């Protein structure tokens, strides 16, 4: 037993001998994803403010209408979030001894295909702009258009790699729920981010 020689006016941080337990919070991969998404949000926020400032700093901003295929790509990306959601509930069903991993895998493959289709569709949009003579450096409006859509597509490709990893794990029946959860949080965020960017580009470009 230790005794303190502190005068009682010092409020000693709590000195109970019983270890305080704490229920540890959310699963670690999800925490990591949320932290990563905070950084990604900040990056796109920085680009957004750059765009707003650049738009106002000179009268050289030329509006253009972006390719219609962008709307189609949006639908594809939203659909991929639905298939991923299906995959999650089917995966949860496996745990209850209900089914094999087939349905879940199919939903995951569907997500992967739709995501890949999204990226291809974005590429098609860039090609369409190029035929109209609109390149990265043509005008600040096009610079930001390409910047936002390319960076978003790169992050979506990252998500595709994550999905591939998840699919390979499920094939070998070693997929943990937390991994699927974290991956789907990232994927849904890519959809939300795209909706934001679409709105931003629609208003500004």
């Amino acid at each position, binding site marked *: *037993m*230790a*005794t*303190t*020689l*502190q*005068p*009682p006016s*010092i*409020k*000693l*941080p*709590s*000195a109970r*001998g*019983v*270890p*305080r*337990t*704490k229920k*540890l*919070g*959310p*699963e*670690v*991969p999800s*925490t*990591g994803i949320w*932290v*990563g998404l*905070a*950084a*990604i949000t*900040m*990056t796109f926020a*920085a*680009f957004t*403010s*750059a765009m707003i*400032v*650049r738009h106002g*700093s*000179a*009268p*050289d*901003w030329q509006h253009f209408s972006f390719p219609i295929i962008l709307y189609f790509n949006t639908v594809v990306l939203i659909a991929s979030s639905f298939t991923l959601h299906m995959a999650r509930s089917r995966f949860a069903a496996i745990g209850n001894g209900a089914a094999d991993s087939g349905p879940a895998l199919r939903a995951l493959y569907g997500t992967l295909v739709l995501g890949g289709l999204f990226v291809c569709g974005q590429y098609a949009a860039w090609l369409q702009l190029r035929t109209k003579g609109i390149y*990265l*450096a043509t005008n*600040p409006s096009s*610079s930001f258009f390409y*910047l936002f859509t390319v960076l978003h597509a790169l992050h979506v490709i990252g998500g595709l790699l*994550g999905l591939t*990893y998840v699919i390979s794990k499920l094939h070998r029946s070693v997929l*943990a729920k*937390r*991994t699927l959860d*974290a991956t789907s949080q990232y994927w849904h965020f890519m959809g939300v981010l795209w909706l934001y960017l679409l709105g931003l580009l629609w208003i500004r470009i």
Partner: protein
Amino acid sequence: MHDVSTHAAHHAPPQGFLRKYVFSLDHKVIGKQYYGLGLLAVLIGMVLSWLMRLHLVWPNAAIPGLKWLSSTGAPGGIMTPEYYLQLMTMHGTLMVFFVLTNVPFAGFGNYFLPIQIGAEDMAFPRFNMMSFWVTFVGFWVLIAAFFVGDGPPLSGWTAYPPLSALASAGPGEAVGQTLWAISIAIFCIGQLLGSLNFITTTLDLRTKGMTLMRMPLCTWAWFITSCIGLLAFAVLLPACILLILDRVAGTSFFVPGNLVISDQLIANHSGGSPLLWQHLFWFFGHPEVYIAILPAAGIVSHILVNSYRRPLLSHKVVIYCMMAIGFLSYMVWGHHMFVSGMSPYSALAFSFPTLVITIPSTILVLIWIGSLYGARLQVNSASLFALGFVSMFVTGGVSGFFLAQPSIDVYLHGTYFVVGHFHMVMGVAAIFGMFAGTYFWGPKMFGRMMNETLGKIHFWCTFVGAYCIFMPFHYLGMVGNVRRYSAFVDDYLQPLLPVHKFITYAALFTGAVQIIFLYNLIYSRFKGKPAPANPWDGTSLEWATSSPPPWDNFGGKTPVVYHDPYQYGIEASSGDYVMQNSPEQIQTVREDK
């Protein structure tokens, strides 16, 4: 990503040389790698500062060896004005990024954060390893700028466009500047990966009984710093991308039209805003300086408590102050831009939080000094550097009073006063935090005690030397001595040349004294006395394991935490302290006053 259990990261003990020492997943090895990289960067940065000081005072002297580094930059060893600026740019970039962000945060933080919270490793060991190697690549990309074309960029570590965006604007502004921007972008990614790890680990991997409030102050500092860094580097990265695009892809984010350089109209840019870069850069840049100082402040708090042999007057207040500083740091960036041409109303808006941030900083200083009253100070190299930090932090902070006010900044902006201010807080105080951490934790990291006599000599010489170098900068600033000049040709600068000479002598002396530290570090590593597990009678979890710790930190015995981190100044079975993981109970005995 890596599946982890709720309490600790599992990976098998490393086998083989490469896995153990090079591509290691072990946070301790990664921490040492960051420290080593930082040490290399600080040595290069210090040599660069000598070259700068020599040129300022003896501009026509041939500096031995310099012509081998660059025959165009220093023909016959005599530095050209542009080469001075190029060396200056690299000095700033190396020091701010690869030393001040690396060592106190990524170096010590990587090593000690998991141990201090009772974890086996970081949450994402593979991302952690990647973060170091990404930073390592970024370092060499930066160093490559010395050896390309006409050398490194000359636009300063702040790289304001259009100077930094146009290759024709100066020597080094072609390939050198592009390499710089790429290097910094790579560095951002490394830092983001690192911050991701620190935050997730702190939130999710604390051992049983380790509540957030029971974490040591340095752990708190690392946690808060990683939160700041996550958001700050996420803004610098876009800025660098936009700069690279302006340089190589013909965009005009930062470059307006109608510019004429050497009678050539710059035709392929128009409409860009140089102020946009400044806003983006300083939105990162101000939090960055708190990223540089907070870990050192946390390390110093941790060491001071140990050497005071009593807890600080309030553990919670220190934590809240660090949080307040972190939060406020995002609201003050415009104080770097008072005379930049931005709205003068914004200037006042930025001035207000800049002045307010004085308050939590003052509280920290008062707590450090106030807790020393009535304490039983143990004097060793670590505690001396920690106390030196407090003195330097006061000095550097006090010069901030001046610069925080736009009206005074009209006179002092762009002068040596600013250079004195930031060197005091970053170039001295933060470095003192690193020295303190090295002397304190060296025994734990390397299993060997360092030589205390050499440490004390190192301290005294560096303390006096640093004041001799940087105090005069403030006087020069008061006269209006402009900064970033490669030579002092103006009329009003002539009477100040003796002051510059004094500074140069002090810088050479203080730099030379660091040999003592290097010798101590290297000699002790191999020949120092074997270190016990707890050489300083410390209470936190790093002292509850061997020196150095085993690969999984606690030899399979996950600690359980019973106490707050700083139970010092009490009568206990092991002395005047109780360790965090000791089940020994503590009872307060009421004293008669």
